[in-house]
């Protein structure tokens, strides 16, 4: 179930939102899907599962955005959430060094569990609080590049940079999906098999790494 199924010209992608509590995951996605911030007349009952339809270069894309519980106690449940997802948006708060460390842990885990097939976006939220910045721009951008992720700065409050995050992620997911489908023409089950092997290789490290993060 490699995701990104395309029937004809339309693709559906699953994107998980990861990050510590209070970094503004919910605000980012609400701003994107409803273009609202902390307002009374937000129509949706919940902000944990939202969908968005896009059209990128004539290809219809259905995004399903899965919010995850950010509390530390639920960290171990991550794999259940992000399995089979095509993309992940990792949100941190630029005023909170700790939340950036959490993002690093998530990236490590995702790369180990899902390999390179998942597209990552690292998002530094709350740029409206630039004066309180505790995570340096250079450090964040260098880190993102080193793990093959895109880095963005956003402000859900001022509606800055949010559209770009999702657009870039969609484009990259489309590329991956197309490469995959062209490869899957001959041996469709091969892709999944390879994916399984990757997990086996890295699982022990994953246990070590996250043991550290939980302490």
């Amino acid at each position, binding site marked *: 179930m490699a995701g990104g199924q395309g029937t004809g010209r339309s693709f559906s992608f699953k994107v998980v939102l990861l990050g510590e509590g209070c970094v503004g995951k919910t605000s980012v996605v609400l701003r994107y899907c409803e273009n609202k911030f902390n307002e009374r007349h937000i129509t949706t009952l919940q902000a944990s599962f939202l969908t968005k339809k896009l059209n990128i270069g004539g290809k219809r894309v259905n995004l399903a955005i*899965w919010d*995850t519980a950010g509390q530390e106690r639920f960290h171990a449940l991550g794999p259940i959430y992000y*399995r089979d997802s095509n993309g992940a948006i990792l949100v941190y708060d630029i005023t909170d060094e700790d939340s950036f460390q959490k993002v690093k842990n998530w990236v490590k885990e995702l790369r180990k569990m899902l390999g390179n097939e998942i597209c990552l976006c690292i998002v530094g939220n709350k740029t409206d609080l630039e004066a309180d910045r505790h995570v340096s721009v250079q450090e964040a951008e260098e880190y993102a590049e080193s793990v093959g992720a895109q880095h963005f700065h956003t402000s859900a409050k001022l509606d800055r940079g949010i559209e770009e995050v999702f657009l870039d992620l969609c484009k990259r997911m489309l590329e991956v999906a197309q490469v995959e489908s062209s490869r899957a023409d001959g041996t469709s089950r091969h892709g*999944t098999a390879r994916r399984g092997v990757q997990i*086996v290789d890295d699982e022990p490290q994953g246990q070590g790494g996250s043991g550290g993060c939980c302490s």
Partner: protein
Amino acid sequence: MAAKPVRKGIHVDHSELLCKKGCGYYGNPAWHGYCSKCWREEYSKARHRQIKEDRELAERLQKEEEAAYASSSSSSTTTTSRPIAFSKFEEKKTQEKARKVNTVKKFFTTSKTPSKRSMLLCCPNNFTMVRQHSVESSQAAGEFQEFLKLLRKPAAQDILKRCRACIEGIAVFILLPMFSFQPFNNFAFAGSLPEQVEKTMDNVEKYIMTRLYKHVFCPESTEDEKKDLAIQKRIRALHWVTPQMLGVPINESSPQVIDMVEKAITDIIEMDSKRVPQDKLACITRCSKHIFNALRVSQNEPASADDFLPTLIHVVIRANPPRLQSNLQYITRFCHPNRLMTGEAGYYFTNLCCAVAFIEKLDAQSLSLTEEEFDRYMSGNASPRRPTQEPSSLVDELSACPVLAPLHTNLLDLQELEKQQCQLESNAADLDRALVAWDGSVAQEVANVARKLPPKVQASISSFPLLLAEVAASPSGPLDSEVEDSITLPPPLLPQPAGS
């Protein structure tokens, strides 16, 4: 760390992926964690013995069942009339296919499908399980045939044929995955709308799963039942977990919220009674919607996963849904994967899986308690709802019990109402008295005024008996005064000619 996935999907633990014997090959959960070779070695002997035992058991059961069936059909005619015509037809078909089934069996035993039960089902003389359809099965069969009538004829026949073959196939090989719908696209369904294909698939799923429910739900070849009991026991042991410990942001004192939480609990319990994976998913979705409603009332903003997951865990702990693991496994195995992975229902299902995984692994740290506290609560020696000392006040104790708290507030409200009622009554009495007094004073006033009024006016207000009596007492007085008045008046003006 990585939570051991509740479902055996693509991502499983490392230890589960390698053969348990350590030969270096990958194992398979379906082979109890062995690789194909080790599994064959390990189980071929045991299986042969098992087959023998199963066959004996099956024969014995068969005899018992036949005896029971004979006695029930002789005692009442209503039971015999239940299997409808369609079922009888099925029975004939099944017998026809018996030989075919056996050949398929051989094919599958070489591929080491670990369904001991399949052997039992394959015994050619054991058809009772297929023959006696439950009410639901008959109903589903009827509905499905109704649906097929709406389709084009060749397509309908094709589907029916496939479904029957599939039912017979799956009834034998329990772990066989749902048959592929792919052929529909290029077979009879070429040129159909995607919606129609989707709808057909839903109906096919409904029909097949209703018919096969008994065989594929919590099958004996898996450990689902053991897991059911384990999670049930676990949840029972965790009855003391309060919403505060989980960080549930709902306001438990509001009757509206309580009502919605109750509804969510009902929905999640109801899941077990449904047969079709879609219906089970719908129950989970309804439960989640109620939770979101409760959160909305409590918080007045759209709920995020940060709020939703703890609340769902709280609901699951309070509900302790029957056969929870079996239901999750059943949905994982038989629901259409697309729906499970991308749709909204899939999201809620994933959250439920998370909730269950969390409950299984829950420890002192995840509830922000100390180890000692956690152990004491788990052993039942203490309860967070009842402090170790005697409750200092009634309110303390009441606040500990979520059911009694609203009762208590209601009682207080009633007392307040009663007080207000008393107050109201005494006020009413006061008012009554005041009215009587006022009445008297008004009558007095009127009498006083009337005494000074001319008799014509007096006559017009003759309705006052008091006044009448007074008038009757002094009939000449007013008349005299009128005469006196007319004397003091100036003489009337006389008309005078204008020009004089």
